[in-house]
């Protein structure tokens, strides 16, 4: 016999774990991300709606959630168990659009607050006005989700029945809500029918119940009386095959009332189920057992679900790392390439080369400098766009790169040109200042024009082998020593600016990815929270 031993440390560990789970994010569209998100939500719902409130207040009434496929007769079953029409039943699918919780009037306070299902606002229809009940049965024009509370004397104290929407509803929201409600249950009442007992969807739910080791009871509803024994045997065989042989099984025959009229089944039809439920509630040992089994089942399921979540966060981080490293390697490659090209004198080509050839005679120093700076800017811009192209290529193969905002960089293209232009112009200005410095140090009577010095220095620096004569000219004008110094300083400055430009562009490229905040920490934190919880159990 398992009992529920609740210590404050356990609750603490549990709420810490809950916070970790709530903090887990899966922003990158990986293959497993939607599933991880759903798992996270489901786990969170189960923690919030069931496990934490149940462990806090073990004396709260047991909640039996009636779930099943559309048209399985869930509402009719609840109505019949209660003995009154508390929830809508009908021929049109899906019938139950808003969940209905039925409990004894004295248990009402347990459910009216936000103890369980905190996300669902409550609507309470007092029993005193039976006429109002009919109005509430058709809340067609109520778009917001509510949990309708019904209090009925015939429900035993300590038991609450919840009529959930269809688990396979055509309305996706209904499905999610149904899953959430079922996760909040102490006792899972799975309703299926003679026509449906082999459907894939309810079986999925049954398997989930088995996985969580929840207190499960199945109801085979709407069985035409001539085939009761055969269908029931078949169903039993299927259950046994699925390892659910010991699950309590109840059969409700198809009666004229069961049908489509929304009528109540005779009490005898649902008596065994009702007796079983009442026994679970009123026998304290059975109650303890039911409660502890589901709670422990959920706690145990954490052992596999938390690592799964942690794995998903790790996958997210790995994907983010892959994206980042693609950017890094692209920019590193381009950085190396642009350095090699600078060394090779690629800047002194085209316009700049023509200017240089014409230099002192048909071209002024300022024009030469302009051309050189422009050419340098073109080289940098080219390598930045080439890097971006490499990144695009690499990212195209990564599913994670589809995250919104990662690809939106078209608007920044002109800006890159602008930023690079700014950087190279600043470099030019500083170079001119250095040239003036060097010229100022000379103690010659006729000082050379600093602009010419700057232009020669730039040509020598950027022109590679081709501009050897520029170096000679510079040495003649400001002396070999000065020329060397100027060249060194300008070279360092150029390398500096180059690094800065590439770094800025890389950071800009990575900024949207960084904004997603995919870190390695959540994985460790999730596992840590789980191990603390397991220790406290």
């Amino acid at each position, binding site marked *: 016999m398992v009992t529920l031993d609740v210590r404050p440390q356990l609750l603490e560990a549990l709420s810490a774990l809950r916070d970790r789970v709530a903090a887990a994010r899966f922003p990158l569209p990986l293959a497993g991300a939607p599933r991880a998100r759903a798992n996270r939500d489901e786990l969170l719902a189960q923690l919030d709606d069931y496990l934490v409130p149940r462990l806090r207040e073990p004396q709260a009434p047991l909640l039996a959630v009636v779930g099943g496929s559309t*048209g399985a007769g869930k509402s009719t079953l609840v109505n019949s168990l209660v003995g009154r029409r508390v929830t809508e039943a009908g021929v049109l699918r899906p019938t139950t659009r808003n969940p209905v919780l039925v409990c004894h009037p004295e248990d009402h306070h347990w459910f009216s607050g936000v103890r369980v299902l905190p996300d669902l606002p409550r609507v309470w229809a007092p029993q005193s006005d039976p006429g109002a009940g009919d109005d509430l049965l058709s809340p067609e024009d109520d778009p917001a989700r509510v949990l309708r509370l019904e209090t009925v004397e015939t429900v035993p104290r300590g038991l609450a029945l919840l009529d959930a929407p269809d688990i396979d509803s055509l309305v996706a929201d209904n499905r999610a809500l149904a899953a959430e409600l079922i996760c909040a249950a102490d006792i899972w009442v799975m309703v299926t029918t003679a026509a*449906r007992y082999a*459907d894939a969807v309810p079986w999925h739910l049954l398997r989930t119940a088995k996985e969580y080791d929840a207190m499960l009871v199945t109801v085979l509803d709407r069985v035409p009386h001539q085939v009761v024994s055969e269908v029931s045997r*078949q169903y039993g065989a299927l259950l046994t095959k699925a390892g659910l042989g010991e699950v309590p099984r109840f059969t409700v025959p198809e009666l004229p009332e069961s049908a*489509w009229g929304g009528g109540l089944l005779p009490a005898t039809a649902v008596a065994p189920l009702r007796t079983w439920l009442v026994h679970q509630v009123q026998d304290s040992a059975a109650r303890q057992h039911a409660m502890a089994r589901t709670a422990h089942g959920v706690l145990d399921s954490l052992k596999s679900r938390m690592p799964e979540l942690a794995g998903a966060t790790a996958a997210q981080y790995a994907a983010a790392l892959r994206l980042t490293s693609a950017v890094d390697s692209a920019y590193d490659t381009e950085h190396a390439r642009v350095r090699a090209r600078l060394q090779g004198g690629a800047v002194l080509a*085209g316009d700049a080369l*023509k200017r240089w050839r014409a230099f002192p005679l048909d071209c002024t120093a300022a024009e030469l400098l302009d051309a050189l700076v422009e050419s340098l800017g073109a080289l940098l811009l080219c390598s930045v766009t080439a890097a971006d192209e490499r990144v695009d290529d690499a990212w195209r193969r990564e599913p994670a790169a589809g995250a919104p905002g990662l690809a939106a960089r078209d608007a920044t293209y002109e800006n890159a040109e602008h930023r690079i232009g700014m950087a190279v112009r600043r470099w030019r200005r500083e170079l001119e200042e250095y040239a003036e410095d060097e010229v100022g140090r000379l103690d010659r009577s006729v000082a050379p024009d600093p602009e010419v010095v700057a232009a020669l220095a730039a040509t020598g620096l950027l022109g590679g082998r081709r501009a050897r004569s520029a170096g000679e000219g510079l040495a003649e004008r400001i002396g070999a020593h000065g020329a060397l110094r100027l060249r060194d300083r300008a070279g360092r400055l150029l390398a500096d600016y180059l690094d800065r430009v590439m770094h800025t562009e890389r950071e800009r490229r990575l900024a949207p990815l960084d904004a997603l905040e995919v870190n390695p920490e959540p994985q460790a934190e999730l596992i840590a929270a789980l191990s603390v919880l397991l220790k406290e159990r």
Partner: protein
Amino acid sequence: MTAVTDQDRTEHTDQTEDTVTTDREMTESSRSPGAGPAGHAPENGNPPEQRGAEVADVASGTNGTSGTSGSGADVEVSGAAGPGALSSQAPSPEGASADDDGGPHGPNGLPGPDGPRATDGSRGPGGPEGRTTRGANAHARVEHGDRHARVEHDDRHAARVKEGDGRAVRTEEGDRHARVKDDGRPVRAEDDGDRERTDTEGIWDDGLIARRVTESTAAELSPVVEPRVSRPLPVTPLAYDGPLRSRLDALRELVGLSRTRLDSRTLAEAGRVLDEAAARRRLSGQHTVVAIAGATGSGKSQLFNALAGVAISETGVRRPTTAAPIACSWSDGAASLIDRLGIPGRLRRRPVQGPDGDPQLRGLVLVDLPDHDSAAVQHREHVDRILGLVDAVIWVVDPEKYADAVLHERYLRPLAGHAEVMFVVLNQVDRLPGEAADQVLDDLRRLLDEDGIALGEHGEPGATVLALSALTGDGIGELREALGQFVTERGAAARRIAADVDAAALRLRPVYATPRRAGLSEEAREEFAARLADAVGATAAGEAAERAWLRNAGRACGTPWLRLWRWYQDRSEPPTGRLPVRAQPDEEATARQRVEQAVRTVADRASAGLPAPWAQSVREAAVRGAQGLPEALDELTARAGLPPGRPPRPGWWPAAVLAQASMTILQVVGGLWLVGQIIGVMSPNLGVPVLLMVAGIIGGPLVEWSCRIAARGPARRYGQEAERRLREAAAGCGRARVLDPVAAELLRYREVREQYARVMGAGVR
């Protein structure tokens, strides 16, 4: 001969299959020693193809050894088949209908259903005989299909089946590949070819002999196909109407055009549609294959039985009930259609009234499917496979399950375009009290409407929605009537194919359609040219040329004294930078980065708005073209630059030089005159020599100045000329190497887009 040998088991054999199974087995066992030469005794007793291969084997052996032409093999085959055919006591009408089964293999060369059939243990008596000649039959195909590859392929098929049942299924998959091959997928074709070769070699030991046999046999057999037409109940193949045919052609063209650009996964669906359309076309147009699909327990089998009027399909409370599809044909000649669905003979039925007892539904082939929503996954696979092959579907829903998400999300929504070949029947209305049935039916209509399925109300085309009860028979008459009309129209198959084409085209939309007009704008071209001109330095070159010209003019027309002074200056100055830069052969005069950037920009412009694969191919075309572009530009600049040497001179130049010279002479004359007066050689006359000198001194700079003014225009023209030459050369080079390939790629895209518009039917922008 083929008339007999080509015959295959058919419906009549199905009816009697139980009684003749043993018969067949006997035949088999008695035959296996006969197959001895090939040395393949049937290991598992049921792959009938085995015999086909073996007999062909025998035939080839005979042929090979006797060295005679195909007729020898022919005789062999017919000899082997003859007794069997006789023992199957096939009267001629049956033989005719049997033909249908063989028919598809003849013209279409798709032995798809062979695989499953081979695995099927229970066969009619005609089976062995028909199959005996399968190998030969396959060869007969050659003449029709006139594709040589198929012969090998079929040989392979027949041969492969020898390896057993498990292999047989795989063979069918192989066939699929082979079918794809016809569409020209190069890689797979090779792949298949390899396998074919190895298989053929493995089995025949000599592919050459085999081929020779097949060719000769085919030549022999081909004429015999003709008489079929004259048989009773000829099966006219399905004919698609003009628009659909042209759409299919367009789709085929589209797939062919875009194969190199799109990955095969994207095109798979379209390829499948084409295959199915082609396959369906070769089969009977008289028949309409209608599948009954629905959830477990909705009463599919009940409805099936109710329509057939006899309990053909097992019904029961056990869920899921039906595990394998069952076919029921209302008239003869549908065997090949059912073959295509892969339904074995033991699961083929006739309605209770007999083949022609129910004229209303004549031409109907009804298929009862397993459920699509039970926990048994293989049922779903069956359903999904067969739903892709049938002409129309009856969806059976019941009041309990009509709003199931599985049905709507997995099947009805994706098939919304097939509304015209869709019936939705609400079964089990007997379980609903009173007007509830109407309510539910209305709700069902609403849900179908939300799924996007057009409802066939008020005479508009669309899905037919009916309420009925298979149990009580309520509404069955209506369905029968609707089905009867539907079948009589004989348009279902074509409509289904049209809907398939629609769906495939819609799915391909993202890779073909663009939100806006794509193309290379004039501005983009100009910008590209401008960037290339920048890369070769056209502007700077032009300016330099202009200045050089101007400088030369100034020097030529300048006063000699000024030139003297300049010369002196130059001598004293260090000769920095003025050293003529020698043009080294390996020099990279073109700015690589600018060329790269220009290509990238123009590719981006051109591919903007194109669907991703096409944008990629445009970019690739641009990059491919850009390889070697800088080198070409280098060379080009060297050639297209101004000719070396002195720039040309304008006509007035000698006059200006003369004027300048005369001014100098004036100065010199005046000076000499003065000097002469001073030293007393000449008579003193201050006025004239001073005047001369002054005129020379003033006139020299004056001439120089006016020359400079006058030289400006020609200098600019000269510079512009230099720039223009470079610019045009660069632009021309860029156009030839980059823009033209890009434009060609865009043109190809446009072509494909037009094809796509044709596929879509009317107007896609």
